């Protein structure tokens, strides 16, 4: 009897061990790890005439005529491609496949990664104050930048807008010079990243690489080197895949960098550098609120952290000018001494206490807090996953991402302007018994950034993909609700924020209706 049981025991242990070994393969893969090559349904050959954002003309920057495909210089280009194609490693083939899914998509993913990497609030100094990241000393702790939501919104917008203008110029020259891709010139060149009828001079992929890499000077100076490496990988992939000749790539990168420099110049003067404020400015928000008989917002962190980018509301928007920032501002939240406010605080307390698992899930899903891609990055992901199915051309990808991210940046500007105008305390400021289901953001409550970012995104995305408009609206509602469920916002922060966010999003819709892409 005992003997039998021991044999069973041995078998049982063996089966468990075997099961465990089989469960050993735990590799996970990203949602966009194995996308097919981008094969646009429409190459948007008229995009050279679409409305630019900063460039005054598509040919502001000259691109010299390419060498003829019959020239010795072009023959050398072809020989270089053939040389690569004869000896491609599996790693290089992997790179070709990765980039063939689309340059706008891949660079947007890279931006989301950088934002998540740099989205960490600085650790306090021994004296209880906080060091401020410095763009002039970016490698010293705290690393520059702290890519919090407003910073991130602006970074996504600048990169997307620069990419868009650079591709408008690129399309202008493509149709002007009309030089085909290497595989159309020489049938022995393989098309490893798919075939298109789009002229390849200058290379749109290299334009994107050049524009994005150049923008790092302004946005993520610590990453210039890593992005340069990524640029080289993309450019090699473009050439080795037969999609672009080395001369297509050289011209493209140069054009992309030149266009990006226009955006960098704007970025250096858009007031973002002053958004951190000064101790006297921080104190002035408190005195103003108190002068209006309002309980001011107070940092819930210990030691108290200065408010996040209090002057971000003065940053120059792409779609919304400074007069509109004022006209978009909603009326005040309930006075902090009012019964209405008391009721809102009680509602916040009860909501957290009664949170369901489903609500906890959505709180986590939409949290997009410290160490993440932020709400604008989350909406970029939502957009990108849908854009993938639309088979857009690169230039339309860039246009739609630029519309989305300009709306997000301007939503951030308007939101921050409102937050610091009213300097309204968080529920946990009003009642310290309110414990929250996600971190309390370190800035005033009214109106909700999540509500504004999400409604602005839903408005422009609903215009771009009408079939998904209802889904975007539902997601925006969930994102806003999740902030109430987590106890960090009053309901009115989110309902008001959603309305203002939609109004900002409509600026992007207005632009989209006349930019030439949908006509």
């Amino acid at each position: 009897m005992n003997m039998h049981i021991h044999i069973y025991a041995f078998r049982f242990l063996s089966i468990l061990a075997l099961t465990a070994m089989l469960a050993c393969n735990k590799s996970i893969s990203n949602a966009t790890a194995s996308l097919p090559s981008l094969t646009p349904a429409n190459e948007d050959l008229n995009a050279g005439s679409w409305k630019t954002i900063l460039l005054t003309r598509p040919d502001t920057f000259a691109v010299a005529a390419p060498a003829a495909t019959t020239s010795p210089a072009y023959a050398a280009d072809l020989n270089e491609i053939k040389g690569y194609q004869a000896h491609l490693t599996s790693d290089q083939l992997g790179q070709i496949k990765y980039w063939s899914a689309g340059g706008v998509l891949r660079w947007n993913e890279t931006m989301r990664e950088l934002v998540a990497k740099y989205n960490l609030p600085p650790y306090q100094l021994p004296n209880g104050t906080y060091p401020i990241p410095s763009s002039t000393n970016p490698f010293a702790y705290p690393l520059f930048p702290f890519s919090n939501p407003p910073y991130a919104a602006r970074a996504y917008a600048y990169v997307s807008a620069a990419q868009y203008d650079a591709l408008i110029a690129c399309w202008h020259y493509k149709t002007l010079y009309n030089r085909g891709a290497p595989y159309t010139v020489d049938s022995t060149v393989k098309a490893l990243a798919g075939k298109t009828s789009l002229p390849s001079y200058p290379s749109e992929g290299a334009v994107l690489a050049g524009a994005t890499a150049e923008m790092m000077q302004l946005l993520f100076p610590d990453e210039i080197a890593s992005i340069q490496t990524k640029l080289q990988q993309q450019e090699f992939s473009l050439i080795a895949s037969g999609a672009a000749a080395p001369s297509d790539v050289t011209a493209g990168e140069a054009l992309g960098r030149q266009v990006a420099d226009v955006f960098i110049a704007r970025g250096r003067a858009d007031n973002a550098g002053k958004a951190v404020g000064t101790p006297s400015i921080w104190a002035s928000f408190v005195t103003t609120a108190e002068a209006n008989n309002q309980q001011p917002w107070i940092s819930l962190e210990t030691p108290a952290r200065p408010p996040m980018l209090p002057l971000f509301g003065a940053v120059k928007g792409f779609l919304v000018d400074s007069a509109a920032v004022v006209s978009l501002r909603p009326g005040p939240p309930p006075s902090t001494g009012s019964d209405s406010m008391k009721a809102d605080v009680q509602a916040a307390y009860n909501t957290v206490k009664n949170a369901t698992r489903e609500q906890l899930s959505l709180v986590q899903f939409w949290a997009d807090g410290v160490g993440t891609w932020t709400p604008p990055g989350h909406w970029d992901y939502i957009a990108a996953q849908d854009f993938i199915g639309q088979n857009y051309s690169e230039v339309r990808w860039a246009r739609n991402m630029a519309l989305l991210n300009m709306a997000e940046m301007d939503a951030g500007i308007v939101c921050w302007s409102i937050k610091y105008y009213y300097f309204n305390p968080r529920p946990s400021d009003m009642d310290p018994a309110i414990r929250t289901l996600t971190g309390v953001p370190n800035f005033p409550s009214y109106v909700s950034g999540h509500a504004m970012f999400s409604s602005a995104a839903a408005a422009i995305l609903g215009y771009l993909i009408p079939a998904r408009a209802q889904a975007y609206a539902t997601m925006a509602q969930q994102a806003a609700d999740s902030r109430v469920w987590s106890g960090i916002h009053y309901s009115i922060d989110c309902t008001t924020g959603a309305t203002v966010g939609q109004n900002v999003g409509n600026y992007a819709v207005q632009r989209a209706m006349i930019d030439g892409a949908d006509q």
Partner: protein
Amino acid sequence: MKLPFTRRILTLLALLLTACQGLRAQTDEDAIMMGKYDLCTGLTYTHSSWDYYWEGTYHRNNYNLGTVKTQMVSLMGIYGITRHLAVVANAPYVWTDATAGTLHGMHGIQDLSGWLKWEAFRQKIGSKGVFSLFALAGGSVPLTNYLADYLPLSIGLHSRTASGRIIADYQLGHFFATASGTYTWRSNITIDEQSYYTTELHLTNQVQMPNQMAYNFRTGYRSNRWIIEALFSDMVTLGGFDIRKNDMPFPSNKMNATMAGAHVKYEFKAIKGLSLTAAGNYTVAGRNVGQATTIDAGVFYIFDFNHKSKTAETPTLKTK
């Protein structure tokens, strides 16, 4: 042949379903076997707290957490199938809380864990010495859909695990030394987010959980009535990443901990089968974990279903 036995095990596990994690050291890490057909059930309360933690290798506190407390009530069951084979199961109810900052604590039923413990080898050495070897296979499954990515206040990591453990024990009179090594496979987990950053951005809700090794050494006095022992344990995560400066912790962090402590168990003479336990543990060194001080106390009672052997050996006396 295989099935009825497996079914019996499952039935037993089901029977003990309400059972913990608290006193892990009590039965699945010691060199003690139950009497045949004995069922030992126990209730343990555990209190663990820390205010310092390791952010990667950086030792720090956090004024926005204050003291992080975890409390558990665990129900445990151990059943002796034979004198050389036992099954162990437990399940805890867990509460978490932080004394500072705004983060809301969590509470709920955590994971069911079970072990099959087999005394594979026993050899008398001299007149007073006994050397024995044990092989254990175990596993755990989350019992509820609790949040994993809510560290440090989540009640668990929500991974399914499978473990193998070897225990070697040497007893000389009333003195003993026990050493064990454990390998734990941990399944990937699903989180509520669509994306997360480790050392790179992941576009998935799946999190790869690195496996773990654990070592345990205990030595002291063991008799009919008493166990008094010193404990040393070391947990090493085989992979994972460090919490970055001022970042939040994440389930797939490289969590390492070296702990030292003591454990006492007393078995009553007057009420046969009743015993009390108490233990304390302190985290001496760690990485991406809290520097926890843990105390627990438990009460255990043995039901003897083998009426023929009323005077069967108590679980603490197997080696005599």
